[in-house]
């Protein structure tokens, strides 16, 4: 006998503005099996939840339907409330009246009717619900952090300092990420390397952190608390234990003209190289794509030179396996190159550079030792133009979003230039100055007021070369769109911040959602900013969207605290929505005939065939068995099963058919 309570939330006016909530409650009360129904302003609020709890107790309800916002938002809230009132939480279902009704339809009868239909659908579902008990699974208290930029470093240190093991994996030969490339940082103008390198060293020395550089995630299987990660450790072609990091090999390598990634192509490196002097670990790797030995089969100069005999030219990639309980993605971002802009010369002008290249020019450790010299002829530019939004906020050719960090770093660049080239002229073409942040606006004002950087409000239409100058054609919209031409010596494009080139591939490997720009999707834009839709996988830094350093660090600490929270128990409870193969009394035992189709289809290898024995121990049948620890509840097996012997708790065929039937029969 169903004793169901229906609770209709107004969500302030979010639902009630288009749905007649009172009528929904009224109609619900007439539905078969519904004992109690009521509407209320904010069902998720304390009084709202109490309303549910009291009704459960008072009317001895055995099923609850809450019609409110998306179940993806408050299903746990309401299920907990039910549990507190003594009702099994899986006897509570949510009808989505906000995201799927009130926010997408106009006010009217049809909209209210849809709301009623959805309530009826879930009432019928609840009638077929069964109390379920959560599954407990053990937690491996070891975290995997992918990406060794400032985000990954911060997350690793936080987790390690809380006493847990961390595997930190970095794709490049050294950790440090983009932050290690920066000269000074806004709004304080303190030196990036000076604040970063101590942290890098701390990571390397931390007893709880295993640092694996020059490595990438090969695969990730399993689920929260119980992941199995395979890491491909690319061959560095050296024996790291023997190598002392003396660097002699790098001086002897004949292949010296390779554009340096660390210097954004403005400097060169050798084929065996340490990316930068402060690298961690400070040991070289051989770039197999460039090394003469690997490309042409001879050379081996480094091998002959190495005093420690640490060169291993026959080294192969290694696959390392780890059991981990949580994963932090901190894979960072990338910037678009200058070749991306047709009107700025398709990358043909050497002296049109990106912001990241300018960082290297301004950095004391950079190719010019911190002097601002233009790449083409090494001259110190007398006129320099900074172009904001080069690709950002440009739906036609670039990306529609704002890259967020450019306004600030452009101001910083212009300032650094003026500090280094006192007689020089710096121009900034901008559309809006977005300087929200502590001391940010003040910083930009300083660039304008104290350092006399000329800010011109307008976008640059074209850059072309004439007589060794770069002609920048812009306009001053504050002067009514008056065209302006500047014959600059160098142009810096604040190119858009975009997702890492392999972001999509990684997302698919670990099964997290990502947006159309390949940035990783947080579980909720406001309330779950570091979680992903996949439990146990967290986000830190600009892999989620472009971010500056303070934000990245804050997010990394946030992700770390989520991991530490998860590791605070040795077990965790998991949603019992998993597949189950029916079992019956003898002589049937089960209707499963053991055809094994589900076994081959299961993405988690959670199903196997087992022998069913009678009381005497004779094997009477072979049938499928679902390992509850491995099953994730996708239900692919259910759709395959011909004899309908397997079903998924919470989404049983009986429940779904009841839903469909309720939806379509509204008379």
């Amino acid at each position: 006998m169903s004793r169901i309570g229906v609770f209709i939330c107004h969500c302030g006016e979010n639902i009630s503005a288009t749905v007649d909530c009172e009528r929904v409650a009224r109609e619900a009360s007439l539905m078969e099996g519904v004992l109690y129904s009521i509407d209320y302003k904010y069902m998720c609020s304390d009084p709202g939840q109490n309303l549910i709890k009291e009704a459960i107790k008072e009317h001895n309800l055995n099923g609850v339907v809450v019609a409110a916002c998306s179940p993806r938002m408050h299903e746990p809230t309401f299920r907990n409330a039910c549990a507190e009132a003594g009702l099994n939480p899986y006897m509570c279902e949510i009808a989505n009246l906000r995201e799927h009704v009130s926010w997408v339809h106009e006010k009217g009868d049809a909209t209210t009717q849809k709301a009623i239909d959805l309530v009826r659908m879930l009432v019928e579902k609840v009638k077929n619900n069964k109390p379920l008990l959560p599954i407990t699974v053990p937690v491996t208290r070891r975290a995997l952090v992918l990406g060794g930029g400032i985000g990954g470093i911060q997350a690793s240190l936080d987790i390690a300092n809380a006493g847990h093991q961390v595997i930190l994996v970095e794709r490049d030969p050294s950790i440090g990420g983009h932050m290690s490339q920066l000269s000074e940082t806004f709004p304080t103008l303190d030196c990036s390397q000076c604040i970063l390198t101590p942290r890098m060293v701390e990571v390397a020395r931390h007893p709880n952190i295993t640092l694996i550089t020059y490595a990438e995630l090969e695969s990730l299987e399993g689920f929260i608390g119980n992941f199995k990660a395979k890491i491909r450790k690319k061959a560095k072609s050296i024996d790291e234990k023997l190598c002392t990091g003396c660097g002699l090999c790098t001086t002897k390598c004949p292949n010296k003209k390779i554009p340096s990634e660390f210097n954004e192509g403005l400097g060169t490196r050798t084929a065996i190289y340490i990316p930068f002097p402060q690298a961690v670990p400070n040991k070289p790797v051989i770039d197999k794509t460039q090394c003469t030995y690997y490309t042409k089969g001879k050379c081996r100069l480094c091998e002959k030179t190495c005093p420690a005999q640490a060169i291993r030219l026959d080294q192969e990639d290694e696959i390392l396996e780890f059991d981990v309980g949580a994963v932090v993605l901190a894979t960072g971002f990338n910037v678009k190159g200058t070749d991306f802009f047709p009107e700025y010369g398709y990358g043909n002008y050497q002296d049109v550079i990106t912001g990241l290249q300018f960082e290297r020019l301004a950095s004391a450790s950079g190719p010019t030792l911190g002097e601002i010299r233009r790449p083409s002829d090494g001259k110190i530019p007398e006129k320099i133009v900074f172009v904001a939004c080069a690709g950002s906020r440009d739906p036609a050719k670039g990306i529609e979003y704002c890259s967020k960090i450019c306004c600030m770093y452009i101001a910083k660049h212009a300032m650094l230039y003026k500090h280094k080239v006192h007689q020089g002229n710096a121009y900034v073409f901008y559309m809006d100055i977005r300087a929200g942040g502590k001391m940010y606006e003040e910083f930009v004002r300083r660039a304008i007021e104290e350092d006399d950087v000329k800010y011109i409000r307008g976008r640059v239409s074209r850059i072309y070369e004439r007589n060794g100058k770069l002609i920048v054609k812009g306009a001053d919209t504050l002067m009514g769109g008056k065209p302006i031409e500047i014959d600059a010596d160098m142009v810096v494009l604040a190119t858009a911040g975009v997702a890492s080139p392999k972001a999509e591939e990684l997302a698919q490997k670990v099964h997290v959602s990502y947006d159309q720009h390949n940035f990783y999707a947080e579980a909720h834009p406001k309330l779950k900013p570091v979680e992903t839709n996949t439990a146990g996988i967290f986000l830190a830094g600009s892999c989620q969207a472009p971010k500056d350093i303070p934000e990245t660090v804050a997010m990394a600490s946030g992700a770390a605290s989520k991991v530490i929270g998860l590791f605070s128990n040795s077990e965790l409870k998991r949603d019992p929505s998993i597949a189950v193969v029916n079992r019956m009394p003898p002589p049937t035992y089960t209707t499963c005939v053991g055809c094994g189709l589900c076994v081959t289809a299961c993405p988690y290898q959670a199903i196997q065939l087992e022998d069913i024995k009678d009381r005497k121990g004779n094997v009477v049948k072979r049938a499928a068995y679902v390992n509850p620890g491995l099953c994730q509840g996708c239900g692919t097996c259910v759709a395959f099963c011909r004899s309908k012997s397997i079903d998924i708790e919470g989404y049983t065929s009986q429940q779904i058919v009841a839903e469909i039937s309720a939806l379509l029969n509204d008379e």
Partner: protein
Amino acid sequence: MPLAVYPGCSLTGSSREYMESVEQILKTFEIPYTFVEDWNCCGATAAHNLNRKVAEALPARIIALAEKQGADEILVPCAACYNRLKSSQKKMDEDKVLKGQLSEMVGMPLDNGIKILNVLEVIEQSIVPKLNEKIQAPLNFKAACYYGCLLVRPGNVLNFDREEDPQSMDRIVEILGATPVKWSFKTECCGAGFTVSRTDIVSRLSGDILIDAVEHGAQALIVACPMCHANLDMRRKDIEKATGRKFDIPVIYLTQAIGMALGIDHQKLGLNRHFVPVSI
């Protein structure tokens, strides 16, 4: 079906050498063609400035005529006419009601499926594959390929190659033996329709183009638009007055350049009709 050719007004009047050279190379490469019979003016800039409907109807009539002749493809050497025909075709593609109205206005059925080709497309598709073997007198000069506006913009209608730095003409010129120069004014506007009414603007804009070409070492400008040619060639005196500089750089139609490389008599290519003598 032979290729239909729409000459347009300029190519039968002030820019007849362009048509002459187009015909010369079509004949040399044995590409059968017929003119669109009883063609009318495309309306050019004047029509879309003053009268939207006329601006759409005039090209529609030309499309209808060509289709009536049974042609699948129509070559429009004049960049301005090409631009008008293409944009009319796109509008009709997007708006079936408009297509119906226009069909009624011109009193002819309109399928609008005909493929409208500019001179570069015809050259790339039918001439380039056989070009190498026919070259008699390779060109031996540095050429600035000038594309102008109407051939490349708007990109979403014309689907030309790189909008800001197109390459198709450069590639052809290279086959002819000339050296295409890298320069910055490939697609800047020459002043176009203002040749009579605002000669001062034309002189300034065309002057900028000549200056940039010359400074990048070009010995000839290669064009594919009669308006560009008129401004850069016939307005040379005005340009020199406006810029205070002398220019002897000739302006040659791409088809003329091909004819020259093929060894065709300069007179047949209409080179004698230029104001600035072609002596390279």
